[in-house]
């Protein structure tokens, strides 16, 4: 004998965790993709420099890791959501509307993380040029790249505050 479950039933029963995990996934996904691309962009242009001047590897690495932080911010956002909905304690019990709220809360980190990581990657790649031509002004290049990070930081805070206030 089969029990008929309508979609609405399903949604009300499982929708909360689904939406929440969707939010967590989006935050980790987009921010991660963005960071991967950003770090990649810097790596490409740093390789050109290292071919000429291998001693600058350490400094170029500093520039390269800068766009990597967004991925972590996304990861943190995801983890906080997962912890809040009780995924780790195994007791996922969250109503549908809170699930939607968590999904919405994850969006700032997801979108801003994605595009700011790429933008930061480009800025840091340009910083490699500074490192090549005027190594003493290297830190200015770092600062330019860090300027971009401000918005990722703001997005992270926005997301976290929303998550913490929702659950």
């Amino acid at each position, binding site marked *: 004998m089969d029990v008929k479950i309508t979609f609405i039933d399903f949604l009300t029963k499982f929708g909360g965790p689904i939406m929440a995990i969707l939010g967590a996934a989006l935050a980790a996904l987009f921010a991660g993709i963005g960071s991967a691309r950003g770090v990649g962009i810097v790596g490409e242009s740093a390789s050109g420099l290292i071919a000429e001047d291998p001693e600058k590897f350490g400094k170029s690495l500093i520039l390269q890791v800068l766009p990597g932080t967004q991925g972590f*911010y996304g990861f943190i956002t995801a*983890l906080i959501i997962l912890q809040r909905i009780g995924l780790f304690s195994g007791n996922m019990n969250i109503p549908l509307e809170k699930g939607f709220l968590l999904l919405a809360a994850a969006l700032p980190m997801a979108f801003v993380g994605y595009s700011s990581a790429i933008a930061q990657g480009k800025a840091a790649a340009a910083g490699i040029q500074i490192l090549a031509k005027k190594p003493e002004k290297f830190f200015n290049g770092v*600062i330019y790249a*860090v300027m971009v990070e401000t918005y990722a930081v*703001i997005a992270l805070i926005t997301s976290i505050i929303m998550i913490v206030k929702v659950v």
Partner: protein
Amino acid sequence: MALDVVKQLIDIEREGEDLVKKANALAIEIQKTAKEQAEQIIQEAKKKSEEYYVSTLQKYEEEAKVESMPIIENNKKEIERLKNIPEDLLARSVNMVIERIVNSMAIVKMNRLVLAAPIDQRDEILDLLQEKQCVQLIDLKEKFQEVEGVGFFSEAKTLSQTEMDYNHIKFAYEFLKQYDTVKEGLFTKRDILSKKQFDNLESLIDWKDIYFQCKEIEEELNHNKNKKAKMVSLLEQYGQWSSLDVCDDELAKLKNVAYFIGTIGKKYEAQLYETLTEKFKDIYLEKIAEKQQDVNIIILSHIDNKNEIADILKTYGFVRISLELNKTPVKQMEELRLEIDALDSEAEEFKSRASGLAANTKDIEKIYDYILTKVERERAISNLVKTKKSFILEGWITEENKNKLAKAIENRFKDVYFSFEEPVEDENPPIVLKNNVIAEPFEVVTSMYALPTPKEVDPTPLLTPFFLIFFGMMAADIGYGLVLFILTFFALKKMDLEGDLRKIVKLVMYCSIPTIFFGWMYGGFFGGIIPIKPLWIDPVQEPMQVLVASIALGLVHLYVGLGVKAYQLIKSGKILDAFFDVGSWYMLLSGAIWMFLGGGSAAKILAIAGAAIILLTAGRENKSIVGKFFGGVYGLYGVTGYIGDALSYARLLALGLASGLIGWSFNLLIGLFSGPVVYIAGPIIFLAGHTFNLAIGTLGTFVHTSRLQYLEFFGKFYEGGGKTFQPLKISNKFIKVNTEV
């Protein structure tokens, strides 16, 4: 008769008596006059002496008066001065205290050293300056361009010789480094030499011999490598012909047979075979090998058909073999292999010779510094100017090193003129910062942005407390703080760190303490692996409170920055500007914050007054009324900048959260394992994860903390643009020269 006699006698007696009487009277008279005269003389003498006495007295008095006048005057002044001393002392001690404070957080005063000496002492004096490492030479060429009788040193020849030496030693060093088996550890400290030992290095170490040997080995190795490459490519080429089992000798024996050995395109192969076998009966075709698009073939035919076949082959693009075939390919290959082996063993030999030479690496390193020092000294010569018999040198020196150098010059040289001058008004001497023990490492933060100009305030001591607090709030973990402290502490103790690197390590050590403190406040220990009750608040649970605290701290930071701007304006006499540009913002910001906190109309009035002042005065530099108006509006628009600045301090919360939560996620990962696996995977994940987080986190924290200083703080008051002080010194890449003795 007798009577006559008696009478005569009586007369005589009478006469005698008379005479006696007369004599008596005379005597009395004489006595009288003598007395009178004596009295007179005495009187006169008395009078005279009295007169003399008076006159001399008068004279002396007058003289004394003249002499004592200035003394009296002086005494009067002295008394006045003594009266004023307490006030003076107070003023002076206040000045001294201010100077002390300013000096301890400040730009070191520079003096200009002017030195002239006989030309033959030039090198010795430069050597002394280099040893003392406290003078940055000034290029005098431009200054003396037009002066008659002044020449410049053009020592292109010796310089190029030394620079060549430098290139040689650099080559030798880099060459030996490849073969040096002794790896330098992190904790290896540099050798310390005395100046005398350093000066004698070249006579003790025959570096040229080592260089020539290196050069020879390098050349031989290159030669060997080229030869081997050639052999290897030949070997490969013969490899394609390895199934050809004839050689020139055998083929030459054939009198009536023509042979063709070579390569043809694969697509023509079948066609060629067909044409040839159709046309000629007595023909031998053999395919030796096939390689990608080409086929190696051998064709034998009767000699009469040679030209015809050659023509046909030409139309199919046949290429004759370019290799020599005086032996069969297989044999050739064998020989080649033997030769390659021989070359390999030869190369090994050279390499072992190089490894043997590498025992001299330490010496070569010393000479490297020696020659680089020499190059620097010779390059410095171009800064000097000369007259016929002497030379002139100018350089910057810090005030504290002045006496030290003066003494050193006086001890060693006789005929040297030197003096120290204060820099002129708009001169731009190089900058040396001097700060107390705590603020000193933070000079790195300042110099990464830009050194102050001589007219500015050194911002280092101002940013120090904020840097410490911000770093602590962002890193915020007891465990990470402890690890950082231990690592940097040992690095400082055990490693040979110098200059900026040492400062950075020290800075991180200082910053590890607030890291521990804020870790305690937030209750973080390696991302919460051991739960610790937060002293203040858990930022994950209550982010809003931390956010408010962050922004409040940020506002303090901004206020201090504005305050420094006001101080600078007031110091240069622009008190009104200080009020317009800083006071107004204080009013507006404070009013706004007060309003935000629930202040009533008083807060509103304060804010509006501030805004009004900005609106009215921000455009005061512009000439036209319209310009003034828009300048004011634009100035007021700057309030958005302040909002942005204040919000920027939200990163104090965000990075604090990030460092804690990333660590937490690794702990979570460990917790996901169950059973005995956790004992293997756990420590690995813990170590790798937390090391990673610590490294990335510290870097991020450092960068973001610096950013808050550079943009939010420096933006308010600091421009920078000072030049670094680069004294002539002894190169210390591999060794240290002890110049104190």
